[in-house]
């Protein structure tokens, strides 16, 4: 299953990339499972996803929670809590 990943603000700076396309196993069905998969990439990833309050997620440009189901070709974004306005 192909997924597009986007990173913003502090998350983007920690990872050193702003986007990537990955191919994950079909048994990854929810965002929570995708996060668990990404955490296995190493310490940078673990630091980003350490506390649920320190990051937010969007799928196809809408804010969603960890139980949101993901599908092939989805645009998934990870970023810090919003500080606009």
């Amino acid at each position, binding site marked *: 299953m192909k997924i597009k990943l*986007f990173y*913003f*603000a*502090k998350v983007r700076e920690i990872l050193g990339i702003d986007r990537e396309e990955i191919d994950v196993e079909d048994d990854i069905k929810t965002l929570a499972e995708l996060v668990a998969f990404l955490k296995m990439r190493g310490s940078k990833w673990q630091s980003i996803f350490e506390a649920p309050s320190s990051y937010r997620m*969007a799928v196809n*440009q*809408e*804010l969603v929670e960890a139980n949101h189901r993901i599908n092939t070709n989805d645009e998934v*974004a990870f*970023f*810090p*809590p*919003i*500080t*606009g*306005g």
Partner: protein
Amino acid sequence: MMSVHVQENLFDLQSITQQLKKLHNSGASVTFEGYVRDFDTGQERLDLLELEHYPGMTEKALSSIESLAKHRWHLDDIYIVHRYGKLKIGEPIVGVIVFAKHRKEAFEACHFIIDFLKTDAPFWKKEITNQQSYWVDAKKIDDEEKSKWK
């Protein structure tokens, strides 16, 4: 009539209000304008505020906030403008204008829109001083203010 504007350039909320006023037979308008403070979280005076956003999602999020407000109150028009990029101290960051027949819905809808914008529109602030730069932390009060509307 509703519109959202996400831009690097400065905006002039007073002249926009005057232009929109000609299009409607409104009894009231309420305007909110937010500016760059000279220092926020840090001790040092800021040189710049840099705003990052999520192109595409930002416009969608602002439009959906406008729709929520329009379904909740009888409004003649809503105008939302938000800047990104490098901003100087004292410059406007965000503007919200609401036109309605009466003051109550105009006041309430404007307040609602800025509260939702604070938590749902994907913008991130980075403060830049002559010494360093750091990302601004989200404030818990912003979530609390939004939850009051439910």
